[in-house]
């Protein structure tokens, strides 16, 4: 293996950059954990509509969830191609990952837009506030990932990626898969379970 070029001496014997990414991902768990918990606290507490059951389309989001899962598969293939030093495959899989991620974002833009047209806004009710904040921040993570993927694909096209720089692709992959697992949680809680929520059952004096 041509890893000798980047032989690092660190106190843990592990790559500091990879460690940094894992520490970041661990802290990002807290970030999303707080947003998800906020959503759960206010779940079913909106006093005015639209409520999740009025606007959430589980079938549409199941498709975009498939797309994001598929992008994770493309990402591991990009790393495998990097380790195998297959220059064309590296660029191909990286672009495929970015493309699938873009489709996911396209679905999200479509969803946000149709929700807005049905009256759900960031300031309209608790559901809108917590939903848009949580999924919006996830979408921002995906968008950042797409930009990173495209930058990496440019490096790949210049022939700068290979076994010696596999760590760069691996760290990008960690970030991308993390975005995927966050979506696994959001999809389950906000769509599969929370998608059938409505407003308060009875409002005294209402």
């Amino acid at each position, binding site marked *: *293996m041509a*890893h*000798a070029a980047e032989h690092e001496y660190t106190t*843990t014997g*592990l790559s500091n950059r*990879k*460690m940094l990414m*894992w*520490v970041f*991902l*661990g*802290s*990002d*768990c*807290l970030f*999303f*954990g*707080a947003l*998800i*918990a*906020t959503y*759960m*606290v206010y779940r079913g*507490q909106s*006093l005015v509509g639209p*409520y999740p*059951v009025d606007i959430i*389309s*589980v*079938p549409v989001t*199941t498709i975009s*969830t*498939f797309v994001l*899962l*598929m992008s*994770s*598969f493309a990402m*591991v*293939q990009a790393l*495998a191609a990097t*380790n195998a030093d297959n220059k064309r495959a590296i660029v191909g899989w990286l672009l495929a990952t970015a493309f699938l991620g873009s489709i996911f974002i396209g679905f999200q833009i479509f969803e946000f837009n149709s929700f807005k047209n049905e009256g759900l806004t960031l300031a309209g009710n608790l559901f809108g506030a917590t939903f848009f904040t949580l999924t919006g921040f996830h979408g921002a993570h995906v968008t950042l990932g797409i930009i990173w993927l495209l930058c990496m694909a440019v490096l790949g096209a210049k022939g700068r990626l290979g076994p010696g720089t596999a760590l760069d692709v691996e760290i990008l*992959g*960690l970030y991308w*898969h*993390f975005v*995927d*697992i966050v979506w*696994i*949680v959001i*999809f*389950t809680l906000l769509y*599969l*379970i929370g*998608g*059938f*929520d*409505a407003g*308060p059952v009875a*409002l*005294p004096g209402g």
Partner: protein
Amino acid sequence: MAHETERDVHHPTFKQYLLIAMILFAITIVEFLLIWDRVGIQDDLGATKIPLLVGLSVVKFYIVIMFYMHLRFDNKLFTRIFLGGLFLAFLVGLALLGLFTAMNGDQRSYALDRAIPYDEHAETQKVAEATTAETEKPPVAAGPVAITVGAKGDELAFDTDSLTADSGAEVTITFTNPSTVNTHNLVIVEAGTKDAVATDGTAAGPANNWVPPGDSRVIVNTILIGPGESGEVTFTAPAPGAYQFVCTFPGHNFTMFGNFVVN
């Protein structure tokens, strides 16, 4: 670099990655099949499906971090760091849920108790300003009456020392607290009882808004209004006679009161 080679050997092959992807797809399909018959229907899914859905997503989560993020083949320290963050995230979530559900009981009634109707509020205030600002005379109408009272800045005093209403009228008092530091309430009591009620209110504690619960001397009271906040209370004006309005926040009753006259 024996360590590196060893790791690469354990990396899943293309076929294994494909199998993992198919398992993830299959789980997502199962999840969808579990709920698809409920699409568009308001429902809480029942007690069996929710744990099942949570369980399936945990499995997906596990597969992705173990294989796609190769924690299974990597140094255990990475796993510990990540799971440490995840564990803290769970604690944050539990703390928030506990704060909002356990300590206040039902958050719905908690919110409703403190809800201020936004649209009507602005209108009642306008009407009230027009009535009180000019004359401070009793409103002529026997119908619903709106009265606005405020605290006087940061002082322990109301901005008026006299309020009036017609017996039997439906009165809505909007109490605004412009203070930057003090919390107040507004309690209407029978004449001459303000200090006694405040003493008993202090014993009742802030959970009762510093008002003795079920006290026959108390006609009506607002909840505690924090600095910069406002609240309102609606009641039917009692039998004609003299009453007092007072803030029963401990210590405030000596300077913060006025006469409430029912004609």
